[in-house]
């Protein structure tokens, strides 16, 4: 194999090329399998090229937040397991895992993709908690977009267990999770003065900045985050948003 280096990534990009032969605005091949975890109420394995992310959904009885007595609750957690990348350390979630979890949380929550009003068992007392656990298996870059695809796919795959006599009956279901949108996160990475989509992990190393934009089916923007220590020119912003909206349709069609 040809040794890959940051220099090489930059050199190729100057010629508008990428190391894996993609065009600047191409995603890698996306594979989505759902229902892959027997014990989970919903699950999805997403492959973005060689990036592999597993998302499992557990439904648990929970107490609603006092200021939201008539809504179910959503908890998103990300584990950057050390199997995924030689630089990940075992231990509690670091900055990257925390940011990923919070961005996926905002994408799901702010897009209102789950109708949480239908998750109430007893108002103010007992609701369904939707636990979205993102488990990174292999990090070849762009974990955020892959995690978002996985979370949405897994939520669409989720069934609500039967609940009888104050007991959750695992393996028997009362129906599907009430979902209504397919929000998509699009990450654009800035390398030099060029933007590319779906950066692999070497491209991420070289990128000064990333802009991640979450888009709902109706083109509404529901989450934005500038990531990394570079800047984005104000004049570039509108074009980037347009690009994210356009690309989100393509990704959504796979969900």
């Amino acid at each position, binding site marked *: 194999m040809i040794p890959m280096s940051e220099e090489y990534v930059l050199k190729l990009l100057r010629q508008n090329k990428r190391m894996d032969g993609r065009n600047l605005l191409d995603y890698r091949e996306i594979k989505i399998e759902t229902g892959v975890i027997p014990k989970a109420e919903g699950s999805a394995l997403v492959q973005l090229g060689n990036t592999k992310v597993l998302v499992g959904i557990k439904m648990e009885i929970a107490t609603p937040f006092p*200021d*939201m007595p008539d*809504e179910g609750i959503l908890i998103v957690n990300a584990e950057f397991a050390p199997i995924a990348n030689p630089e990940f350390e075992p231990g509690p*979630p670091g*900055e990257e895992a*925390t*940011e990923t*979890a*919070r961005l996926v949380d*905002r994408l799901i929550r*702010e*897009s*209102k993709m789950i109708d949480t009003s239908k998750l109430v068992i007893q108002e103010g007392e007992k609701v369904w908690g939707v636990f979205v656990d993102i488990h990174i298996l292999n990090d070849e870059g762009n974990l955020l977009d892959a995690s978002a695809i996985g979370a949405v796919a897994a939520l669409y795959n989720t069934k609500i267990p039967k609940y009888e006599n104050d007991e959750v009956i695992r393996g028997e279901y009362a129906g599907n999770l009430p979902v209504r949108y397919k929000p998509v996160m699009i990450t654009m990475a800035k390398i030099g003065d060029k933007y590319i989509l779906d950066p692999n992990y070497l491209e991420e190393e070289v990128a000064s*900045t990333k*802009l991640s934009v979450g888009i*709902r089916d109706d*083109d*509404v*923007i*529901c*989450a*934005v*985050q*500038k*990531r*990394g*220590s*570079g*800047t*984005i*020119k*104000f*004049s570039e*912003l*509108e074009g980037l*948003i*347009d690009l994210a*909206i356009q690309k989100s349709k393509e990704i959504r069609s796979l969900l």
Partner: protein
Amino acid sequence: MKKPEGFKLVDGKGKRIDGRGLDETRPIRMEVGLLSRADGSAKVGFGNTVAVAAVFGPRALFPRHLQEVEECIIRTRYNMAPFSTESRKSPGTDRRSIEISKVLRHAIEATVFLEEFPRATIDVYMEIISSDGSTRCTALNAASLALALAGVPMRDLIASCTGGKIDGKLAIDLNGKEDNYGEADVAFAMLPTKREIVLLQMDGELTKEEFMTLLTKMADKCNKIRDMQVKTIKEYYKKIGGELE
């Protein structure tokens, strides 16, 4: 958080709950040099939101294996005092403060000439002592002033404000209630003379048109915030100069 029924964030005349117009910020107060132990310090208030920032460094970083050979590293901490919120906030970091500390660090990294201090660290600590919305932007404005006071070379001052959509209208500098009950909120910071964005976070629901319109208003406001920062620094040095004479 769910908006109580019938509660209005904007009245028929376009006035907000604290009497402001949609494009108005709350009263902004800036003070610098208030902490004697820090290399630079500042206190910034946007209405009832108050942040204090202190800068230590550039200083040597230990243990050595944390050092970067070619540039200095930035460490940040964004922290809310337990008494800054409606209900007491338990002390300690949570996922929110971890994320905010990270995006604020990136904003500062995008601004400071890091390569001038290889192997060093610059530590920027931001404490929210009173919280009524827009805390991270208030903190970043304070950090910008504190960095300037510490003599850290920067590409420009960082100017920051929030914006959002409340009762269907675009508005600048959200207070706590507007943040909780509004339809969208954006945290934004830029280097005004460069027109480069160093912080951008958004939550909620906005069309592209709304988003761009709002961002343009916020960029304008950041220009004014930068003017205030410059004025604050100048007055400080004038006063200090006067005292030294």
